[in-house]
């Protein structure tokens, strides 16, 4: 039991962070806070992936003399692409928030919904 906890506590805390980001997205109404919550969710997923590629006693995957055990370079490559795609999505989302503010006058989700329903 105790070695299950020692081997897995990393994953459980990262899942807790994922759920914190998810809760922010579905419960809060402010659009900027939703985008911040989405980014927290994304960053926690990256932490989960890099934890899978970690090797105990290894080092960064740059080949040098004197080291034989390296971490897995494949999750690093995938997460590099994912980080940059994530910032592109955030930039587009924030541009949409600016336009919504100009069109509706507010960035609270239920006020926008009320204005739409009353049309």
């Amino acid at each position, binding site marked *: 039991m105790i070695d299950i906890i020692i081997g*897995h506590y990393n994953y459980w805390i990262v899942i*807790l962070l994922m759920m914190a980001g998810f809760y922010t997205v579905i419960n809060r109404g*402010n659009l*900027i806070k939703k985008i911040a919550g989405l980014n927290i969710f994304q960053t926690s997923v990256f932490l989960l992936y890099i934890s899978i590629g970690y090797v105990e006693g290894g080092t960064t995957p740059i080949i040098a003399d004197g080291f034989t055990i390296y971490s897995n370079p494949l999750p690093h*490559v995938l997460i590099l692409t994912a980080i940059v795609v994530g910032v592109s999505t955030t930039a587009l989302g*924030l541009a949409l928030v600016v336009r919504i503010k100009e069109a509706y006058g507010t960035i*609270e989700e239920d006020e926008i919904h009320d204005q739409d329903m009353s049309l």
Partner: protein
Amino acid sequence: MIDTLIDITLLAFLTITAIAIIKMRDLFVVIMLFSIFSLHSAGLFVVMDAADVAFTEAAVGAGISTVLMLATLALTKDHNEKRPAHHARIPMLVVLITGGALVYGTYDIPSFGDPHSPAQEHVKPYYIEHSIEDTGVPNTVTAVLASYRGYDTLGEVTVIFTAGIGVMLLIGGRIKRKHKQEDDS
């Protein structure tokens, strides 16, 4: 031993920051806490031996993302979030069920740091042994990103370019200062 201690400290800071982001209602504070979250996760990437990823996360998360969110906050001049009008019971239930299912799924994942897990056995030995003789580049991550999987990187650059074009279409109209003014809709 020191590694584990740093790991636990950084994870504790991350959890406190995430809970503070949920609770705070002043948006300026939320954006600053988000930048701190990004920097701590970059530190965690360094502890887990991912130097390239830590570099990118620190530059992009604590740099560009924070600047863009502050610019959005300056354009929508609303600094406080409204108090939520409905109960938090159903979202909390959904979050607990999803979290429980994910934790149940982690019982099958191999231990943290296991050198014989399936993730380390199949493609990784080929990349680590053959990257110097195939490409001549010591940094394995650059070799995989630019040479073995170069096609995916082409798609990624196209995604960034498309995001730039999308932002230009949404908020990139000509400014009033010049004598020519174009419609941006």
